């Protein structure tokens, strides 16, 4: 029997590629899953540009925490999204915010946040997982958000035929990095200057950069962590926040800025530069040259929007996932419920 094609374009697909260098990457995950829950976008791919298995596991447990309430498992046989993991990277080390939640246990000794990722082979090949996610999207209906070095996206770019897929499927790339209109290299560019140069020179779609000047202008309030997530006795993003610094502290939101702009560009949270071309110089410095037919722009902080932005971050990231019709196996649902159940062990989050 013929099955009709999908006639209505779904919400835009989001590909999130991150080095998981700071807690704002975890907060960005929460924001994106929250926006997915609101059906403003569909989370279709997640990948890690740090060659660190724990970062991939952390990404997986956050996905599982939200599983059943987001678009995730479609096309992957009912399993949660495969997590792409870089083969190699200048970034390798553990960061406390993603490593510590993994060892959290319940009273019976079982992990509070179970994951199927036990070794590298449980993660996905980066170029394939991103490209395959793109192939499943409507034309021009994907936005890629990068919060880390450009290396993973360049590995996609280097795959045969991938440029065509990118051109057809990707509406916009939002890159967290650089300094604009020009300036010294930031950590994300420095981690792989060669890839950054290639990405800005060869990526075939428009790019909006969220430069380092956007980092630190807004913070995520510790008070939100203390109050807004009380609906869940154990939350992997709260645990990451607690592990990422000494409470109470306000966390950076650089990756959240990129993510919020990517999904809600029309909301005017940030100003956007005129078009031009971004070049990454040999020493990693970035330089923006205005040009009417340029494909690149960069975000500009608007202090008048600060309150609105913080409100959006705290409300969306802390939102309780909305149950959707079951799209994942019962086993995964049981694991999700277990993760949300009150832990009985000593590792219960400490309220500062």
């Amino acid at each position: 029997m013929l099955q009709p094609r999908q006639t209505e374009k779904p919400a835009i697909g989001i590909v999130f590629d991150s080095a998981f260098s700071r807690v704002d990457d975890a907060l960005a995950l929460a924001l994106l899953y929250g926006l997915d829950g609101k059906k403003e976008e569909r989370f279709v791919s997640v990948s890690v540009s740090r060659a660190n298995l724990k970062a991939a596991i952390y990404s997986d447990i956050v996905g599982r925490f939200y599983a059943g309430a987001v678009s995730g498992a479609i096309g992957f046989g009912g399993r949660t999204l495969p997590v792409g993991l870089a083969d190699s990277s200048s970034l390798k080390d553990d960061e406390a915010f993603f490593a510590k939640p993994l060892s959290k246990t319940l009273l019976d000794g079982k992990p509070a946040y179970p994951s199927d990722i036990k070794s590298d082979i449980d993660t996905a090949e980066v170029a394939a997982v991103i490209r395959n996610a793109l192939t499943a999207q409507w034309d021009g209906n994907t936005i890629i958000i990068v919060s880390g070095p450009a290396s993973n996206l360049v590995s996609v770019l280097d795959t045969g035929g991938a440029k065509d897929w990118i051109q057809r499927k990707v509406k916009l790339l939002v890159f967290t990095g650089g300094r604009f209109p020009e300036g010294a290299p930031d950590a994300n560019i420095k981690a792989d200057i060669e890839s950054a140069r290639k990405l800005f020179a060869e990526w075939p779609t428009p790019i909006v950069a969220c430069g380092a000047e956007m980092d630190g202008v807004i913070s995520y309030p510790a008070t939100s962590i203390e109050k807004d997530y009380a609906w869940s006795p154990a939350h992997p993003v709260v645990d990451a926040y607690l592990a990422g610094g000494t409470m109470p502290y306000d966390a950076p939101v650089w990756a959240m800025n990129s993510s919020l702009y990517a999904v809600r560009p029309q909301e005017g949270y940030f100003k956007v530069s005129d078009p031009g071309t971004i070049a990454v110089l040999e020493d990693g410095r970035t330089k923006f040259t205005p040009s009417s037919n340029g494909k690149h722009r960069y975000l500009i902080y608007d202090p008048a929007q600060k309150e609105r932005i913080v409100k959006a971050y705290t409300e969306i990231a802390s939102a309780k996932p909305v149950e959707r019709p079951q799209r994942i196996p019962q086993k995964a649902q049981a694991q999700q419920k277990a993760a949300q159940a009150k832990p009985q062990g000593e590792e219960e989050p400490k309220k500062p």
Partner: protein
Amino acid sequence: MTITNKALARRTFLRGVGTAIGLPFLDAMVPALSYGKTVETPVRMAFVYVPIGAIMDHWNPSYTGNLAELPRILKPMEPFKKDMLLLGNLTHNGGRALLDGGGDHARATGGYLSGVQPKKIAEDSSYGDRNGHSVAAIKAGITADQIVANEIGGKTRFASLEVGMEDAQQAGNCDSGYSCSYTNNLAWKSESQPLPPTLDPRALFERLFGDDGDLSPQARERRNLYRRSILDYVTEDSKKLETRLGPSDRSKLDQYMTSVREVEIRIQQNEKDNRQIDPGMEKPGGTPGDFAEHFKLQSDMITIAFQADLTRTVTFLVGREGSNRPYREIGVPEGHHNLTHHRNNPEMIEKVAQINCYHMRTFAAWMEKMKAHQEGDRTLLDNSMIVYGSGIADGNRHTHEDLPTMVLGSGGGFLKSGRRLVYRRETPICNLYLTMMEGMGVHKEHFGDATGHLQGLTA
């Protein structure tokens, strides 16, 4: 080794009326002056496709590294552990819906060897591609075997051989708006030109041993009337050849001719049986109703084709994707496809596992023959790379990741066999083909949806 003044040409044929029989590799084909040197034997490549995946719990072992105890479905392969690579986590992304709706079976086969998602054929405006474009003509992609055939096919009588067992239908809708061309063909010469497999053993036999492809209808009729063997037509050539051969080659030739004759006799016997018994299904007159016998005939002819270097590239579609063939001979009267949608019913799962095991036993019997043929220091199996697999993993859920995939033979030492290798999730199965092409001497930077070569595969 027999020393002769002049070596016998590798592409020597015994000829008779309407007959041309290629020869296996003989010592006499080695130039005299090359004594003591390594003589290169050709590497062959085959893709054996079984429909609707497997019960993966009985396929995947829990370990990686050197092959140890094999799971239930793979048990018949125990004698070949040192000859095989068992590969995990390979993906056929083109088999997935990718917003094109149903049709997993057609996509599984239609793009299995190209990494391409085939296009639906329905012209009705309600049924277009994922972006609403109406599509009419068939469109898939050139397959790995044909890439190789294009490069090295000129060295053999047939650039490639396409062999099948079940369904030759090429037109019409076989799966949710996908053409039967996708479910019933494994090899594609171009994105719009499938190469239909030969299902009838008689037709395959005559293709292999007929002169210039086929006997004339009159010659075939006369031969059938007198029940003569093709070997009768080449007696004179055969006698002449024997005078140039040493005892070892004569014995080898005798064994080879006997195997050709045995296949011919079995085909004749099947034709006789089929005239007496209505098979109850539409198929060529010479096609055996029994799965194992049909498999054996087709695979024996592939073996002979490889032995005689008639071709180096074969695709073998064991069943059409989505096949609902019953297997009464092993006590499974229900249709295969119906059973695979088992909804976790243990009895249905068990029957699918029995079918999987049955397929594997027949395949193992073929591998035994491949391994029995010696070619210099190696066996025919050593000098081959035979992929056994499917474009679907779990037939119940129609998944296209972690496909059941194994490779028999080392491609003349190119592959490091005897291991279970599990790759990262989403690794394209085209990465395997790209690596195998290298083993065939065909160097390509990109192929299908490959992201590179499979790491750690080669010796």
